[in-house]
């Protein structure tokens, strides 16, 4: 792919930012300009949705076939559900094909061309056995932990002693959550009077819950929004309506919310 085509692909992805789907946690960015600082969520969006469309016809067919191997594999890996045995077998095949093609294309089949200390593409072959041994990927993936790490800098109010400030803020935060959790569970009436919120009206799954999320809540708990949903308006709404109009399978919703 030439530089101009790579820039065109990046620009197309950046223009599509206004039509970010509801479950997209991060806005789309130009992949050619920002590929070094792309977050995992952005790469997931690239491999699951934007990449196959943006690269079609712009890279050689052999390379595109190689790219479609991880695309098909990721559709199985990152599904927030249980993975049937047949899908694990498909996953094994796709990853083996990717491994072979990558070695052939990137390294030209010659060990002297390897620039990495470890060929990380080989480690992909372990993923199906990971799933067989430890369960579906959503149960141990690091998205919730990364999201949690992202909340920590805001708690660090002191620059002279950041560690102590962070420890104080974290302990205060969890002490408050513990009190709120205890009060809402065992003193519901008192809690409702003081806070003005009915604890029974809140969703069953909360941060203080030790229960595993149900199937309906799983996607929400895995990819919790960074901000509250907001009403779409202006250019973003017009762009989204155009896409929905094009792919319409039913009546358009009366209100459209966005989460970023």
């Amino acid at each position: 792919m030439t530089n101009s085509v790579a820039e065109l692909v990046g620009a197309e992805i950046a223009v599509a930012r206004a039509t970010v789907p509801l479950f997209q946690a991060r806005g789309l960015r130009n992949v050619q300009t920002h590929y070094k600082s792309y977050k995992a969520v952005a790469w997931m969006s690239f491999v699951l949705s934007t990449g196959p469309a943006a690269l079609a016809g712009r890279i050689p067919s052999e390379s595109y076939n190689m790219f479609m191997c991880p695309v098909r594999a990721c559709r199985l890996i990152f599904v927030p559900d249980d993975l049937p045995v047949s899908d694990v077998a498909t996953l094994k095949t796709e990853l083996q094909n990717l491994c072979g093609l990558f070695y052939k294309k990137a390294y030209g089949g010659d060990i002297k061309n390897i620039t990495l200390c470890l060929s990380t593409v080989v480690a992909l072959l372990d993923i199906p056995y990971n799933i067989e041994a430890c369960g579906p990927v959503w149960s141990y993936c690091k998205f919730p932990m990364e999201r949690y790490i992202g909340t920590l800098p805001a708690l660090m109010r002191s620059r002279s002693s950041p560690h102590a400030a962070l420890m104080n803020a974290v302990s205060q935060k969890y002490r408050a959550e513990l009190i709120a959790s205890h009060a809402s569970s065992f003193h519901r009436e008192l809690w409702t009077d003081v806070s003005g919120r009915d604890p029974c009206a809140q969703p069953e799954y909360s941060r203080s819950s030790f229960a595993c999320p149900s199937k309906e809540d799983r996607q929400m708990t895995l990819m919790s929004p960074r901000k509250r949903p907001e009403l779409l308006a202006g250019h973003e709404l017009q762009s989204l309506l155009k896409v929905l109009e094009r792919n319409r399978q039913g009546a358009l919703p009366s209100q459209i919310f966005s989460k970023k």
Partner: protein
Amino acid sequence: MEELNLLARGMLGDKVAGVDGIQEVRVHLLQLTSEMPGGNKVTGIKGSNGRQPSRFQDFHGVWVEGSNHHDFPDKDPSDRPASPAKLFEKKYYNKNRRTASSRTEAVNIIEAARLQTRSKICVERLMQVSGYKGYFFMTCPSPVDRAPYPHMRYIRDIGPSSAPYDVMHLVLQNNVSNLWRLFSGVWKDSNQAPHK
């Protein structure tokens, strides 16, 4: 999943050693995740620096003199493979699985060599071949560490499965970004020339 939720809610009617009466017992699932180098440190595995980088499979990469890297081609390119039975082959990738017992066996050999005050090079070579560093508290503790913590036997018996890979970083941050580098011409070969 339903069973785990049931255990988290609590089971009444169990007797606990040292406590009088019937107790309600709750079971919670504790899970530690780490990135690949961190996981290798926790499990005492040599990891990417070793000849056997995989946490789940027992195989050898191919070392070529003059290169500073291990390679995992479809077929061994060298004339004299060091150990043909365990060389990497994509087709038979799942042939030699690492288990808790195979790990204990390999670690015992390394520790025996240390006890016999064998040379440092000899111990290092054993570590390179097996992929383990020696006794490790979490996954493969020494008999002295093992005795005071009998209830940690479950984790030790799980074997390598107790430390799954962090798939998010492996797939998205490593391999998918490498694919973009390859397609957009940023990928360089060993002499820093752009990929053709």
